[in-house]
């Protein structure tokens, strides 16, 4: 775990920066995420489930340390109380689930015995995973969601993505 965590900082570059720079830039960065996950999983020798779990947990921990530890440490220790730190912590839980789903989808994408009918849903799910952050920004700006509502929407979105990927995973693993 620690060994994996040391590698992640080099891969996991800009997951904390949200900015309307351009969909293209975003896509490129998040695609790099996928590549990174794939590389890590291929190094790991073990059953499918273990690969997924190890990769996802390592990735999520790295993201937590890089993008949330410093603000929490610096901000939450002050005199003032702010609900945004609680929200940040919830957000880290949600992104853990999200990364597990993403790792599972990446693993499924690279399987050679993936049935043809699964290709499309898996690709769609992959795209959703990559653009989830962008979608969230869009929702917040268009519907002017408050911070707690945005968190709820994010949770629902992640929940649905992970449920779909769970279905696909179970079907794939137990289809023979």
């Amino acid at each position, binding site marked *: 775990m*620690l060994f994996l965590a040391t590698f992640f900082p080099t891969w996991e570059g800009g997951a904390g920066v949200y900015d309307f720079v351009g969909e293209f830039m975003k896509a490129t960065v998040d695609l790099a995420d996928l590549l990174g996950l794939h590389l890590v999983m291929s190094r790991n020798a073990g059953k499918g489930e273990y690969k997924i779990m190890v990769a996802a947990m390592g990735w999520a921990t790295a993201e937590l340390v890089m993008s949330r530890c410093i603000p929490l440490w*610096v901000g939450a220790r002050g005199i*003032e109380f702010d609900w945004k730190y609680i929200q940040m912590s919830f957000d880290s839980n949600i992104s853990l689930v999200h990364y597990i789903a993403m790792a599972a989808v990446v693993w499924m994408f690279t399987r050679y015995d993936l049935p043809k009918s699964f290709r499309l849903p898996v690709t769609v799910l992959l795209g959703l995973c990559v653009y989830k952050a962008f979608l969230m920004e869009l929702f917040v700006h268009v519907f002017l969601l408050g911070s707690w509502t945005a968190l709820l929407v994010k949770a629902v979105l992640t929940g649905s993505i992970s449920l779909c990927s769970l*279905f696909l995973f*179970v*079907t794939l693993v137990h289809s023979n």
Partner: protein
Amino acid sequence: MFEEASEVFDNMFKSSFPLTFIVFIPAVLILVSPLPTEAAHEFTVYRMQQYDLQGQPYGTRNAILNTEARTVEAEVLSRRCVIMRLVDFSYERYQKALRQSAGAVVIILPKNMSTMPQDIVQQFMELEPEMLATETIVPVYFALEDDELLSIYTQTLTTSSSQGSSSAAEVLIHTATANGFQMVTSGAQSKAVSDWAITSLEGRLAGTGGEDLPTIVLVAHYDSFGVAPWLSYGADSNGSGVSMLLELARLFSRLYTYKRTHAGYNLLFFVSGGGKFNYQGTKRWLEDNLDHTDSSLLQDNVAFVLCLDTLGNGDSLHLHVSKPPKEGTTQYALLKELETVISSQYPEVKFSMVHKKINLADDTLAWEHERFGIRRLPAFTLSHLNSHREAQRSSIMDVRSVSPSSRHGVGEPPAGPYVDLRKLSRNTKLIAESLARVIYNLTEKGAPGDLQIFTEQMVQEEQLSSMVDWLTAQPRAAQLVDKDSSVVSTLEYHLGHYLKDVRRHYVKADKRDPEFVFYDQLKQTMNAYRVKPAIFDLLLAVCIAAYLGVIYLAIQHFGVLYSVVRRITAPKTKQH
């Protein structure tokens, strides 16, 4: 012990490097990072006066604050910062806060004083000297109101007034959602300022016609006083006196430039500092001139000393004397000339002489002329106030000037004391006429009472107006005007325009037995941090523990979800 520690460090460095990082970083962060501050609201507060006069301490002694905010309605006030608005201010509430040994009192003043009703302003003015009279450990601050401060006040009000009266459930909800405020001042404890020099300025116009001419001294003190030094602008008291003095200097210097109108009197103008602190500037000036110099204008023939104090308003003039002038003296001549001029040219002005003996047993002297009277120089003070104890001589409400020209916002006059420029210029002209009649001996030469020496245009109202505006643009408390201050140098420059031999005079307190001691930390920045009550932390911890427990259970029983999904997907494949 140290060898073991070094062994541990050696092992750490020899084995994988990343491990050491992970162990080190939190330790470093704990040691190095200071507690960060991000204020909910930061605002400037002005502290109440703190000074010692002749050994007697006045005002508040403390300057540090780090307590929770409450308003007066709250039950427990001890060690809390009590916030009050000026509209709700009353002496009983103030006393209540002090009795319960509150941590501090913050009084919020409205940005625009003219919105206050007259009686509140009057009441506050009466209370100012009482607040200062007792020495208190509780720091008292004044802050100017803005929207954030007002919202902080209303939130604190709802917290404080609901404290005693609700059920347990309400209290619980309230603690979870309410916002408390922690007020913290930045800055150190106040200490005495050493070596503070009070500056005074003098200048003269020499008379013509030989040696040993009689001297007339005109005096006005330029400093102001109020319950908070940074808020005391002193428009009427004594901005009016200083601007009148400068205008008289201008008028008489013009007269003295022409040989025909050059009179046989020396005119000595003195702008004194430390006037509100028992006339320290004048006292030392007199000592230096009478005791320590061989010859000075004050030692020889002094006709009289006229002190100008608070002349910017009102329709009455009072000549305060400590000894009624004897007939035949120049002093008496001025008294008579004043009466003549007023009765013939300004009948709307009520003039009277007020005789008050110097009482050396009092803590402070009443008027500035008493300093001269103690040294046996004939002196009087001219003021529109009847008594030296009037509250408006030392109030922070004395803020600005009003003129008929619309530059200053026509409309209702301000609630507190103020300078009415028309009346100021009328008084200036009045005094100038009377002085001229004395100097040129006009009554003896048979000039009628309504002869106007100075025409309307000579006394320039714009000059007076701009002087008063400039004087009230900055606070002129004696603790704030040091010898490099712009007030002193600008006054020096102006005097230098009209008078000769403009000199500065410094007063420093005696080392062993100081007549006055000033303290610093008069203006501080206060931060109001939004804090949650202590119960809230407990509640939050319980909720987080519950949440973590639920998550743990969910993960433990993930297998259940897995088998459900499997069962759902299995029939599909069977149907194939």
